[in-house]
């Protein structure tokens, strides 16, 4: 390793991190689909997939092979370049934003005495939160273009609905995070996590930071952003066939499908980082004596991070099994007339409280 | 180590393409887009000059330009929708009610 200079080592390590994170994320996406089918099945008094492998554990593999081997149909009337580009944009944007998420506690690796490389985060960007928001807002193009280029009225309606819904709820989403940013005084996700690490769960933003209102606004806006139930109007089967991806088949459909679940995971990551202390334990320094040595100390933060994300995914599925779909005017009214004002009041209250205390 | 002048030339290229598109295009929406392109080109010069003087004021000016551009886009697109509703066209040459 001595003949490589610092920049080359940095590049190699970064590529390695990207590959590892990508593989883990895609596997997680596949198994989130299985989890959803299983849990939904149990909630509706049936088994869910159980034939492929033990407990249906190989079902994602079977689904993947099926989608991969299906004929890739290209309808005649589509706008070909955009039709191909749309799922790539959707999946790409869903996966990019995971690059700024810190998975574990800051672990610096020093090579040749150079600047440290953070082991559990691909890129520590000082505007990480804005990067996540920006990449999410670019993801709208995937949906908008898929509907338009399909040349199908159901697709067009689905994508018009989705676009309007996403740009409306983006406001409430962005404003709900301002309270957290005010408390942390930074836009770097690492700093925001570190600001919640002092007293276990009592310093998490949702409890100690009194950001519980902001958290619920974020949760609802994020459900709308990811087009999940109860805000899944863009793909309402009963009205729009399958919404914006009606004309898609095979791998292109699979990319939209994966993009949806990858977006869910991103939303869960951001919620964990901003409101639930990221990779910090909920117990603070109580058990420091027991878990202070070596491997457990390094792995435990990742365990907590994955655990919190899993809880969010279960919440997603629970909500989907419980709530019926909104009507479209109700959806818009809810976003503009309820979530947005409440988010503003939340910012005002947080700012006043900080000004009073600080 | 790129000279600031190259950034400015890049901005000039974008600005002039914006001018040409503004003059040539006949669709109201595309004309509107070329205005946005020109605004972006000017923003690039602001950022380059801010970098040159090691000052943040140029960047703040860009921030204000962005805010105004967003407001302008909202109103402009509303006007375009109203126009389309009354005239059923987006071609600027067909919108000549006040002529003659």
């Amino acid at each position: 390793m001595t003949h490589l200079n610092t920049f080359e080592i940095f590049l190699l390590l970064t590529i390695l991190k990207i590959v590892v994170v990508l593989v883990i994320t895609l596997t997680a996406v596949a198994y989130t689909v299985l989890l959803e089918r299983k849990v939904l099945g149990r909630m509706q008094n049936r088994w869910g997939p159980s034939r492929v492998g033990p407990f249906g554990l190989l079902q994602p593999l079977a689904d993947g092979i099926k989608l991969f081997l299906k004929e890739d149909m290209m309808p005649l009337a589509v706008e070909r370049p955009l039709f191909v580009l749309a799922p790539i944009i959707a999946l790409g944007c869903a996966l990019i934003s995971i690059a700024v998420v810190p998975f574990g506690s800051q672990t610096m690796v020093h090579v040749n005495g150079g600047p440290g490389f953070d082991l559990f985060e691909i890129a520590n960007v000082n505007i990480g939160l804005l990067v996540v928001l920006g990449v999410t807002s670019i993801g709208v193009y995937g949906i908008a273009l898929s509907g338009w280029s399909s040349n199908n009225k159901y697709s067009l309606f689905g994508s018009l609905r989705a676009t309007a819904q996403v740009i409306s709820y983006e406001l409430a989403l962005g404003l709900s995070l301002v309270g957290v940013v005010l408390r942390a005084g930074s836009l770097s996700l690492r700093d925001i996590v570190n600001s919640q690490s002092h007293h276990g769960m009592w310093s998490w933003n949702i409890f100690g930071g009194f950001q519980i209102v902001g958290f619920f606004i974020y949760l609802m806006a994020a459900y709308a952003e990811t087009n999940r139930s109860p805000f899944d109007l863009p793909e309402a089967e009963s009205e729009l066939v399958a919404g914006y991806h009606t004309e898609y088949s095979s791998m292109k459909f699979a990319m939209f499908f994966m993009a949806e679940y990858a977006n869910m995971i991103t939303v869960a990551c951001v919620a964990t980082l901003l409101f639930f202390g990221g990779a910090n334990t909920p117990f603070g320094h109580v058990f420091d004596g027991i878990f202070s040595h070596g491997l457990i100390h390094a792995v435990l933060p990742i365990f907590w991070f994955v655990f919190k994300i899993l809880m969010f995914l279960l919440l997603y599925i629970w909500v989907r099994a419980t709530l019926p779909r909104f009507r479209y005017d109700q959806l818009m009214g809810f976003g503009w007339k309820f979530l947005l004002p409440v988010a503003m009041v939340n910012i005002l209250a947080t700012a006043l409280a900080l000004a009073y205390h600080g | 180590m790129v000279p600031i002048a190259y950034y400015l030339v890049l901005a000039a290229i974008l600005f002039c393409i914006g001018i040409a598109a503004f003059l040539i295009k006949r669709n109201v929406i595309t004309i509107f887009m070329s205005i946005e392109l020109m605004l972006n080109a000017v923003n690039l010069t602001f950022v380059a000059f801010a970098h040159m003087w090691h000052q943040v004021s140029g960047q703040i000016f860009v921030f204000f330009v962005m805010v105004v551009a967003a407001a302008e886009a909202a109103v402009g697109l509303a006007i375009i929708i109203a126009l389309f509703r009354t005239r059923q066209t987006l071609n600027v040459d067909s919108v000549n009610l006040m002529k003659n």
Partner: protein
Amino acid sequence: MQTALFIIFGIAAIAGALNLLFQHHPINSALSLVVVMMSLAVLYWSLGAEFLAAAQVIVYAGAVMVLFVFVVMLLNAGVEEHTSGSKIAYIAGIPGAAAVFALLAFVFLKNKAALGTTQLGGDLNNVVSNLTEISHTLFTSLLLPFEATSILILVAILGAVVLARKEL
């Protein structure tokens, strides 16, 4: 590094702008404009304006251009037709734009030495970070313009709602 970034994204920006000029369908023009804006965001970042880069992506590429694409889809705008007016525009427009470009490029390149060169990332005069400096200036010395823009946005929202309503 800076040179590579400048060349790649400068060419991407110019290609996007030319594509905007030569495409006949508004949605293709809109997408090429998105390419221009994303490349400009990278250039801003390389010039040390990371907040503006993020704002460019969120506000321009993520909101304004989505609105454009949305309106194009909503109105189902087709390929633009050419009329007699466009011929005059071709004859006058392209030489005019070229003349303006020649003038600007001449002035900039003549003063190339005086303008200096760039370093990757910002080096503002004795400040911690770009973000804190921007917010500090914005909320102290430029508070009045900032508040004025908020009023402007409010007026714009109301205007857009009134204009786009069914019964005018």
